[in-house]
């Protein structure tokens, strides 16, 4: 039975003056956090605001440069997660750490196995304890089933059981709802509320304001590495919380005086893309869309509903089964990727580290990537280093990439500057069509405004943009048309002047579907 922490202090967790710097960046600066026992305490902030860094500090994954950590009234230094676990802290990571081929019981007890007097694993004792925990949470599992048979939401519950099994009374959940579908989200909160009723404390990291306002008891807002506000759902609103997160006024992505031209630049006509495994359903199912010159077409959707496959299919990186893709009226369905890029297609990828940058290479090589056939930068066989470097400096200048020079390796840049470099590279070739996947993900507000400005200018000059974003404000503000993707299909066409985040949300979860027109 968890002991009651109230006995020993007012707060289950108290962080005072935490500062943590990584080479060159301050991830956390004088952060203070006080979490009352028996509450669900939300930590909200933009991507890159420093939420995860703070939680890693609390969980002992690294040590702060300054500041103190007090748990249940005891101030201590956590040298490793083992110390944190000892103090009763448990962490449910965003990416689950489960062994697929072991059973649920085996996963839960892994690293903390109860043993019999003869030195064997005491599965009976383990199962008894796990069953007690399951009753407390109101969940039910066949403990002998392999974890591989579980869905995402169930795996998360196994992670929670695993943390509780180790005796955690304070649970940190790092963006737990990012991977869940809506019903699973509400189920998760039922479990979390039972947990706090039993005396546990939950620290809930999120940037989804609605679920935070609805379910959490207290809220701490982090912006640019420091805590800027402490509030509760009673005292604030969605708008107020959003403004706290971004600092002052929300940047306004809108500016709706566009001149969409008649010429269709990109025409995707009823394409199918097979699922990842044989027999699974289609990743793209009869998807059609058109992007005209001077138009931004936004795609809304929960991640993993076919947006990635759509970009890959337009680029020719994966095969399409039916239908066709045309660029400026020319059928490019069977054209190799490089040729498509050379005819004016550009791509800001979903993940700049995985698909955008050569991290170890200097910036001038990074701005050259994908533009090898640009005659100003290379001849038929050879690269022109001087021209490439000059071009790279121009990109750096135009997009305000903060770097010592074009010779610096890409890994030395902060995330926001890396993103500006990728956006700059893709815009440098004056593309006709830009596929922009989360173009402002993880960048600060100033950079976000700058990237929006560039997108708008290019659009006014006739570029067509296919914009994929999880930021609904950005989507509504920039787009001329919004399409919603769900389950590999386009399920709605919306006019951004009428769309609200709430309305988009109902389409994105698949509750409501419009017949494809």
């Amino acid at each position: 039975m968890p002991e009651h922490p109230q006995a020993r202090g007012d707060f289950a967790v108290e962080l005072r003056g935490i500062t943590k710097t990584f080479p060159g960046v301050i991830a956390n600066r004088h952060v203070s956090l006080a979490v009352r026992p028996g509450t669900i305490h939300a930590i909200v902030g933009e991507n890159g605001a420093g939420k995860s860094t703070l939680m890693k500090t609390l969980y002992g994954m690294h040590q702060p440069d300054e500041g103190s950590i007090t748990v249940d009234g005891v101030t201590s230094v956590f040298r490793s997660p083992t110390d944190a676990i000892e103090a009763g802290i448990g962490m449910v990571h965003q990416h689950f750490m489960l062994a697929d081929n072991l059973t649920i019981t085996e996963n839960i007890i892994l690293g903390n196995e109860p043993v019999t007097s003869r030195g064997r694993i005491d599965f009976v004792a383990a199962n008894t304890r796990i069953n007690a925990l399951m009753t407390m949470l109101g969940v039910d599992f066949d403990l002998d089933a392999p974890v591989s048979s579980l869905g995402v939401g169930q795996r998360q519950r196994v992670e929670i059981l695993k943390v509780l099994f180790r005796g955690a009374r304070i649970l940190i959940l790092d963006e737990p709802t990012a991977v869940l579908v809506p019903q699973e989200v509400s189920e998760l909160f039922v479990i979390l509320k039972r947990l706090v009723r039993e005396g546990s404390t939950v620290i809930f990291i999120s940037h989804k304001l609605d679920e935070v306002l609805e379910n959490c008891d207290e809220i701490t807002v982090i912006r640019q590495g420091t805590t800027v506000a402490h509030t509760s759902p009673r005292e604030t609103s969605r708008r107020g919380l959003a403004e706290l997160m971004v600092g002052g006024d929300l940047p306004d992505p809108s500016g709706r005086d566009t001149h969409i031209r008649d010429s269709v630049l990109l025409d995707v006509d009823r394409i199918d893309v097979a699922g990842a495994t044989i027999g699974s359903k289609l990743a793209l199912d009869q998807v059609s869309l058109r992007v005209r010159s001077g138009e931004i077409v936004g795609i809304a959707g929960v991640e993993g509903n076919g947006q990635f496959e759509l970009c890959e299919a337009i680029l020719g990186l994966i095969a399409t089964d039916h239908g066709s893709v045309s660029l400026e009226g020319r059928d490019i369905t069977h054209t190799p990727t490089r040729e498509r890029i050379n005819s004016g297609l550009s791509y800001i990828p979903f993940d700049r580290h995985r698909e955008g940058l050569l991290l170890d290479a200097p910036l001038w090589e990074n701005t050259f990537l994908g533009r090898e056939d640009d005659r100003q930068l290379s001849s038929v066989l050879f690269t022109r280093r001087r021209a490439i470097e000059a071009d790279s400096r121009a990109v750096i200048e135009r997009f305000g990439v903060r770097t010592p020079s074009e010779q610096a390796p890409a890994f030395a840049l902060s995330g926001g500057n890396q993103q500006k470099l990728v956006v700059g590279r893709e815009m440098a070739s004056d593309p006709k069509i830009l596929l922009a996947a989360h173009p402002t993900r993880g960048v600060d507000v100033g950079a976000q405004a700058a990237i929006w400005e560039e997108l708008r200018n290019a659009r006014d000059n006739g570029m067509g943009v296919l914009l994929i974003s999880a930021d609904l404000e950005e989507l509504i503000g920039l787009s001329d048309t919004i399409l919603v993707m769900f389950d590999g299909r386009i399920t709605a066409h919306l006019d951004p002047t009428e769309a609200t985040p709430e309305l988009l949300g109902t389409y994105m979860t698949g509750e409501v579907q419009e017949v494809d027109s």
Partner: protein
Amino acid sequence: MNRQRLQRVLVTSASSVLAIIVALVVCAVILLVTGKDPVKAYSTLFGAASETKVLQGMLNRATPLMISAAAVAIGFKMNLFNIGVEGQMRVALLSTAVIGGAVDLPAPLHVAFCFMIAMATGALWSGIAGWLKVKRNVNEVISTIMLNFIGLSVVAWAFDTFFRLDEEGESTSLLVKTKDLPRSAWFPDLVDRRLNGILIVAVVILILFWILVWKTKFGFQLRASGANAGAARASGVNPKRMIVISMLISGALAGLVGMRALMGDVHAYQNNLAEQQGFNGIAVALLGRNHPLGIFFSALLFGFLGEASGRLQLDDIPKEIVTIMTGIIVLAVVIINEAVKRWDDRRIQRRAAAMVEAAS
């Protein structure tokens, strides 16, 4: 700018130099423990550098190592590990000895013809691994190892069955060879019977390697694929095409590895011809950090150690100490390289951040 470049060169070579020092120290300890005098051993070993004959032998030994290291390095540049250089080399050796020996051409043409045969055979053999990787996603490490076994066995069998030419009255297997290559296919010596001219070919290969990898569009795409396959793919580089091309180039170079022994020395195929020179290229490429200049010096070092090791026996020191030394060098370079890279990454990151801070 120039200072930055110099720093890069220093940091890149630092791990190799450190690895050599570590190996020397460890071997000194081994010598001490076994009751030998390391100072005497090392002075004998490195004292050999004063003899012209040893230096010529060093260059002779370094020649195939440069080529095989280049073959390995081009694969490394895009994260392909071609362990099959040995097998590719052996297949090429026999085919060149047989086909090259069967034709009659004027000297320069005949040499070029033999090179073509060697490169084509090597590329054919490595191409199988490339094809398997692209079509069936077979890891090239596994396939090239297996193709080594297959290549070695097929060559041994074919040689034994069809091409061996026993010398009259001799039955010792040492002298079993194929028919001699005609004189026109012999690669000329620089110093009579002491130093063969293929050294120049090897140096030219290293220079071409440098141009290809660092100066051409293809080389950029090759390095990009190695640095981040996902980013290269998204930028329109066809990963399958890159895999096949780099495997073919690697195999073609591997085919040339044995040519010093075949065309510059023995002039016929025999069973242990150029043995191990394909495998040793892996060590040379690692120590040379896959850079032509590094490969050049590493090949010289390995060539020298191999040539001079015999001298140790005069002092009653087992020459295997040199084999141990090369093993430790390779192991140490891998470990130290990782440590140096981490340290250097942090240094660069800090400096970049400081400069950005100062500018704003």
